[in-house]
């Protein structure tokens, strides 16, 4: 059972890392601020989500597992807002230059 849970952790966390990698590669390769914003918010969100799901089996208790999910939900809400704020700032910068 424990081996199976560890396997879940390894698969999920590794998959999460692929998305984090994609996010950073996008951040480095994409040509302008707004496209980089896409890379950052979308890939990293899923990356964190997969890491969180991967860590739930390692959490000591049900409460810790639920807390982990709360972390992810907060980050989702955050990035939904922050991406809009950054996009507006970038649009303003684009307009004024």
């Amino acid at each position, binding site marked *: 059972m424990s081996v199976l849970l560890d396997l879940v952790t390894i698969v999920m966390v590794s998959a999460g890392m692929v998305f984090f990698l994609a996010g950073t590669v996008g951040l480095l390769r994409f040509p302008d601020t707004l496209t980089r914003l896409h890379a950052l918010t979308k890939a990293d969100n899923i990356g964190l989500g997969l890491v969180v799901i991967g860590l739930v089996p390692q959490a000591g208790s049900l409460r810790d597992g639920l807390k982990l999910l709360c972390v992810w939900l907060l980050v989702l*809400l955050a990035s939904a*807002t922050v991406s*809009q*704020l950054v996009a507006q700032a970038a649009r303003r910068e684009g307009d004024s230059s």
Partner: protein
Amino acid sequence: MTIVPALDLFVAGVVLVVAVWTVAVRNTSSAVVGFVAYGLLLALVWVRLGAPDVALTEAAIGSGLTGALLIGAAARLRAGESTVAAERPGVPVRLLIAALATVVAAAIAGVLLSLPDPAPTLAPEATANAGATGLGNPITNVLMAFRAMDTMLEKVVLLLAVLGIWSLSPDAAWGGRPHLPHRAEPDAALEFLARVLTPVGVVLGIAVLWVSADHPGGAFQGATILAAMWLLVLMAGLGEVPDIGRRRLRLALVVGPAVFLTIGLGGLVVSGAFLSYPQGFAKPLILAIEFAMILTVATTLGLLVAGPPVAGPPAAGSAAAGSPARRAAP
């Protein structure tokens, strides 16, 4: 097993690079971003060092509130930034500064390296007497029982800081309201965030205080979260900073130290020493102090970021502010 120390070295390296970059970068807004990033990374370091209490404080203060304070400062400085940058001190002055900084750094390094091994510590005594208060978190024990006097004075210092900021207000504005510079048009995304996130933040802030009796947490960290939520509501244009002359605001500012002092003096009467808690009542009394403190500290921190009052009290000042679409708290 050699992989874990390698990780620690790597983390320390990243923190150092961000720190140096923050100091070296010339643009103030970049420096602020660097500082916030530095704070967040330090939280990682504290967790790695097994000090989650400190990590919580660093996450709350270092990244959130200090960031907001510095951002405000950077915005005010921006107008004069180019003139300041043009007035670079001459080479001798810079050399002098570098020499002095090196002396200070060398002195600190010297002290650190000459510490006796093992370093002097009160930890065994603190652990031995931990049972007396009925609290499970050693940090709260030290802060609220063994070092209660320091903790109380720290909170009073915060109040003095608010008084210091208020003393910067022009005479006409005394008793009026600080003014977070609002935009003409509130931002929909920010507003949505403030409406949804604030209740969650309130629960999290109070929970951080509540669990501190037995787990990492504390009134100060909780208060920081509450203050951040208050400021978020203000930034979104969903409320106004109250007039600093308001009685309820003043009450919120003094209730924490007042409860602390009252319980401290009660200790003098009941158990014969200032700030000693009677046997068996330590935990409820400490929680009472912390709940009063969270209100005071949250208000204090919010007012610190809000700055000095700029508009006079309601009768004189309502026409002075230029935003026609000013909206009252719903």
